[in-house]
């Protein structure tokens, strides 16, 4: 299996330095293989390295005998990522500034427990590599006791790699270490921020961010606190808040922070967006939250699951709704919020507007904000229904059935939909009564209903 790949790496027409040939042979040789690194990865790295130096016509200059083997580069790269993740974690623990003791306690409890079931990707490779790491290097350096090879060794090793290459190739950084390296995924590895400002305007990145513009998690936590207070207090400028949240989310992303704090940020932004009816932002947060919840990082999965159901009710997306129903577990269905959302769905599916408007009035959490998105539409649908089934009814009945606060609101709604002439005053034994006469009204409401359903605006749907 290895023979063909090796020959592929060195097409016949070009002349290769003999050192490179032995380098490739070593890279593929059995005894140099490192556990946890597959042949495919080695081949990839090999191609990348050779391609990089070939482009710069440095194949003959490079000291191939001392250049790290591809598997070692991969291991070193992973170690580096792991270290950064460790550094991030350290940040969380270091946030013992006296001002935030309470939250810190909360956070550490959450951050220690969460990922038992699912290890985050950046921590996965860590241990295995450290343990096997001695084997691959047997011939090159004094053998080390595997058990004692600790993080400081790792650090030393990493430095050695950097030094090793700087000997001959001072001007060029090796491909696995560049920030803007050609087609390397590694360039987007996590940054560790140093910025201490609480506020920051959102700016869409087109290049890797500089550490001094990015805020580390302890700062971000204070930012969130500040935003929460502002939103609850005086600040009603949604654009400002939304902008701040977007930059907050961006800082989390570029530092690969994915923990209970991340969930908190997304949840809060989603709720605020809901409150302001900004379905675009809300939907983005929702998509992210769904994946975050899969990682079991805490938060309020049931609440947001319920929102998602209501959201699909709003978009009338049957296919998505079906997929969502397929995902639901019995445990999900027993949650009050989810139960409510499912009831809303089935009430509408069966045309049970009576039940629907009852459910509207008793929506848990922020469900009513989402239901506001389609309440007008459903009122028109109910009116289309009622106008066909009744000759005339008391206005009060309509007010109750359609979940209006009072008769005045109901009248205003009818007026807004060109139905004011249907309202009549009728005198009977108990005094005067306002009634709605539906004579010939059915086509009018039917047209309004059809129009309302035809324009579901799906903002930011991914």
């Amino acid at each position: 299996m290895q023979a063909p790949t090796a020959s592929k790496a060195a097409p016949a027409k070009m002349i290769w330095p003999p050192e490179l040939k032995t380098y490739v042979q070593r890279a593929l040789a059995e005894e140099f293989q490192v556990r946890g690194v597959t042949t495919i990865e080695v081949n990839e790295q090999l191609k990348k390295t050779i391609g990089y130096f070939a482009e710069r016509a440095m194949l003959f200059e490079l000291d191939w005998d001392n250049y790290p083997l591809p598997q070692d580069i991969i291991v070193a790269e992973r170690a580096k990522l792991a270290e950064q993740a460790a550094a991030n974690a350290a940040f969380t623990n270091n946030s013992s500034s006296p001002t935030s003791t309470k939250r810190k306690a909360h956070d550490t409890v959450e951050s220690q427990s969460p990922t038992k079931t699912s290890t985050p990707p950046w921590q996965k490779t860590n241990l295995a590599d450290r343990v096997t790491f001695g084997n691959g290097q047997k011939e090159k350096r004094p053998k080390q006791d595997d058990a004692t090879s600790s993080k400081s060794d790792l650090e030393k090793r990493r430095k050695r790699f950097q030094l090793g290459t700087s000997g001959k190739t001072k001007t060029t950084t090796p491909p696995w270490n560049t920030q803007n390296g050609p087609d390397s995924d590694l360039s987007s590895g996590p940054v560790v921020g140093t910025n201490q400002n609480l506020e920051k305007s959102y700016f869409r990145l087109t290049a890797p961010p500089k550490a001094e513009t990015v805020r580390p998690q302890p700062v971000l936590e204070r930012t969130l606190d500040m935003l929460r207070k502002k939103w609850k207090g005086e600040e009603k400028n949604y654009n400002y808040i939304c902008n701040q949240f977007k930059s907050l989310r961006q800082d989390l992303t570029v530092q690969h922070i994915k923990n209970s704090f991340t969930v908190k940020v997304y949840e809060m932004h989603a709720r605020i967006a809901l409150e302001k009816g900004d379905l675009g932002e809300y939907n983005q947060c929702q998509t992210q939250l769904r994946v975050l919840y899969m990682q079991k990082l805490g938060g309020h999965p049931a609440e947001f699951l319920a929102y998602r159901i209501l959201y699909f009710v709003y978009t009338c997306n049957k296919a998505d709704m079906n997929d969502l129903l397929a995902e639901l577990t019995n445990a999900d269905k027993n949650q009050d919020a989810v139960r409510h959302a499912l009831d809303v769905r089935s009430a509408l599916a069966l045309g049970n507007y009576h039940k629907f408007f009852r459910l509207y009035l008793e929506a848990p959490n922020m469900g009513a904000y989402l239901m506001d998105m389609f309440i007008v539409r459903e009122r028109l649908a109910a009116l289309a229904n009622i106008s066909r089934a009744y000759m005339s009814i008391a206005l009060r009945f309509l007010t109750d059935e359609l979940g209006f606060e009072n008769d005045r609101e109901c009248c205003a709604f009818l007026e807004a939909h060109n139905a004011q002439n249907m309202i009549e005053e009728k005198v009977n034994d108990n005094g005067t009564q306002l009634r709605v006469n539906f004579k010939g009204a059915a086509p009018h409401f039917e047209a309004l209903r059809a129009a309302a359903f035809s324009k579901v605006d799906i903002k930011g749907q991914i």
Partner: protein
Amino acid sequence: MQAALEPFLQAHADEVSWVVVAQLSPFAPPENPGRLYDFYRASNEHQIENEVRSALKYNRNSRLSNKEAGAWMEIFVAYWRAVGFILRAEEARNQGRIEDRQFVDIYDAWKTMTDLIVRHISNGSLPNWTIVCMYVTANHLRRFAIRADEQLAQSKSNVTFSPGFGDDIVSTVARNEKLEEAARVFNKMFALCLGDRNPDMRESRKWGTYYVANLLFKTYFKLKNVSLSKNVVRSIEAQNDLPDFKVYPAAHRTTYKYYVGVLAFLQEDYTKAESCLTDAWNMCLPDSMKNQELILTYLIPCRLITKHNIPTQTLLASYPGLKRIFGPLVSCIKSGDLAGFDAALLAGEDTFVKRRIYLTLERGRDIALRNLLRKTFLAEGFEDLKEGQSELDRIRKTRIPLSHFVVALRLRSSGQALEDDEVECLLANMIYKGLMKGYISREHSMVVLNKKGAFPGTGV
């Protein structure tokens, strides 16, 4: 190798496509279980190319043109490699230790071969009758891709950081990357078949159109990307120089009609769905029970909506699988048993949701309710005869107190007690949907039904 390729040369000379296809099968035929093994052992990595070349190009028996021999040579070498991976995986499975990427390797090798066939057909090295090889090979590719994806899904978590400078933390990595890749190959084939300009229809690649379209449907459904299937239908409908649909093989037509029907069903175009599914049903072979069952799975809910029809017990009796899932639902609709209907819908929810018929079946509750209201109406009896009227003039009571309907609904519903207003609302719905004719008078707490045909289509 020479001997191993002899059947191919013979079949090729006779242009018997299914024998040629059999020579490129990833499975050994039942009468010769050792075929793959023998074929693989007949050569090795170093000699395979030369051996195939001499068997195809320099063989006296071979009547292949130089160009075509070259194409087949590449294909058979790729096939030989793929067989190697298949045998290795089989062996590993027998020993109970499948390695991480074994199915992925099979897929990759098979894709190389599929790509070669596509390329040589499109550059004209292979005659057009070999499209049969192309699409059968593609069908195997689909299966291999599914297995490879299953294996990949086991070996890595599907959540990672987005590689760009995105604003958000997570991006979902393609969970079906191999099948998606395969879909692109099929798409290429589809274009190759659909867009063939060869005026001689006997030689045209257009004959592969519906088979490849079906392949795309299967793939997109599996990928849960149903909307892409619509594009396939659209391009076929836009292509006006295809041979008459009727002359395509029945197998291609039936499957195609089935998928177009299901697509219409999912888009809630029940009229179109019904006509396509009925076509498929009529073409389906009498003993393809599995396919009939698939068609009925969608045709039954469809007719429930379009015609308010429910399947007869006789029909269901011949399909135990369908009887199990639809049986209880159907009998509850018939008897107007709302509580039973809700329970049956709940019991079958997982199956219904999986087949994407849940939301449609749910609407069957309207029919159950209609039947219940109709029974109530019948139970009300007739108006007293007036003077001079005979039995023939008897008319049913059409002014029915709301409370009677309330009682009927409470009797046959489960869960919390229904409020009076809710019953009214459900009645209004029946009227709105045209299942019941009449109007509600709140002042008199009465439902006034139409004297002629209170429940359209049910004889009263």
